[in-house]
């Protein structure tokens, strides 16, 4: 579980939702967006199969250039959420991917916020020390 990059919570669907007409984006257009993001990454890392997830740590700093606001937010997250080095690394990679999916050059505050919302839940209930 420690190495899983993203996790999201889901609520149970009601029977109306399950039986009703599906709404939301169709897989086809999502596929196109993912392909576009993939090619941005391939170009960035100079290898067809390279992704933000697999890129070597050394390239990350240059690849994930943060805006000042994004950097502030990440800094706060490290303090308040006690992120580890690995945890922060993961946030960076996910934030970069969010920005790529939007076709954005630099990583903005909202990208970091979104990446933070995908982070692992605390596995242990927060109980007294």
């Amino acid at each position: 579980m420690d190495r899983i990059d993203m996790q999201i919570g889901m609520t149970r669907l009601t029977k109306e939702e399950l039986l009703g007409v599906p709404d939301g984006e169709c897989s086809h257009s999502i596929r196109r967006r993912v392909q576009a993001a993939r090619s941005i990454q391939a170009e960035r890392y100079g290898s067809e199969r390279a992704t933000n997830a697999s890129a070597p740590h050394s390239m990350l700093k240059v690849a994930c250039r943060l805006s000042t606001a994004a950097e502030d937010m990440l800094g706060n997250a490290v303090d308040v959420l006690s992120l580890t080095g690995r945890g922060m690394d993961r946030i960076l990679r996910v934030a970069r991917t969010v920005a790529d999916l939007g076709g954005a050059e630099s990583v903005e505050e909202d990208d970091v916020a979104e990446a933070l919302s995908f982070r692992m839940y605390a596995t242990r209930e927060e109980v007294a020390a």
Partner: protein
Amino acid sequence: MMARTISRADGEWPHHLNELGPERPPTELFVQGRPLEAGSQTIAVVGSRHPTSAGVDAAKRIACGLAEANFTVVSGLAVGIDAVAHKAAIEAGGYTIAVLGCGLDVDYPARNTTLKRQIANVGTLVTEHPPGTPPHANHFPQRNRIIAGLAAGVVYVEGGERSGGRITARQALDANRSVFAVPGSIRNPLAVGPNELIRTSQAVLITDVRHIFEELAPGLVWKQSGATHMGGSSIPLEDPEYRVLSFLDDAPVAVDRISADLAMPVGEVTLTLSRLEVRGLVTRRPSGYEITISGARGRSLHRATEDS
């Protein structure tokens, strides 16, 4: 800070303790930290060593509220509710007393060693056991009677049928103290202790720290010192942040529900929650997000400035 021994003749002796009856008060106490001050404005917060997150939250709120109203929080330095209560009191800038079931120099429980040191600095450690005494199981009911003796009332947060908290509550009743219990769900085994005390009219049901003040001094209007405690440092909240914060409760709420009820797109809700989380105003749980104490404070301050 220096450890010292005090007896009944000393000025520092808490006379409140003598109310435990002719034979039961200790004859001397080993004390470390700030001068021991206990009396009508001292409340014990006790409960389970393995609380649920709801119990932790209740203990935090109550201890924080007590400290903000300049009340002293006394507890037993155990893991769980005790530790939460001590910490919340310290964080709110209040004074807290920890009563140990062993010698002052024995670090028990080991997990609370840092907290114990902190209390030795900003609060007071108290025990009736001389240095070097190990924590025997039979010391704890004895320790509980001192907790009850030092306090004007005991708040019982969570505990099973035969918990230490229940013993403390019993001893508090014997010493003519008020007993308060925070109720819980009938499906929560740790709510059995408090619920049973309420059912049998041995404890007053409380859901807010103000209920304690009302019980101790009915009719008196207790001023909330929250605003001064914050030093006027109101937390700037943008509109979506305030709307999301207003919607949250101390039970986790799923992102989908927030989104549906506030008619705010899921993406915006998620981003807003992340921003709030990074500022320590909400916490994330497997089933959703809940508001933290600072979040609740920020929200009420925001509301106050909006109104004025």
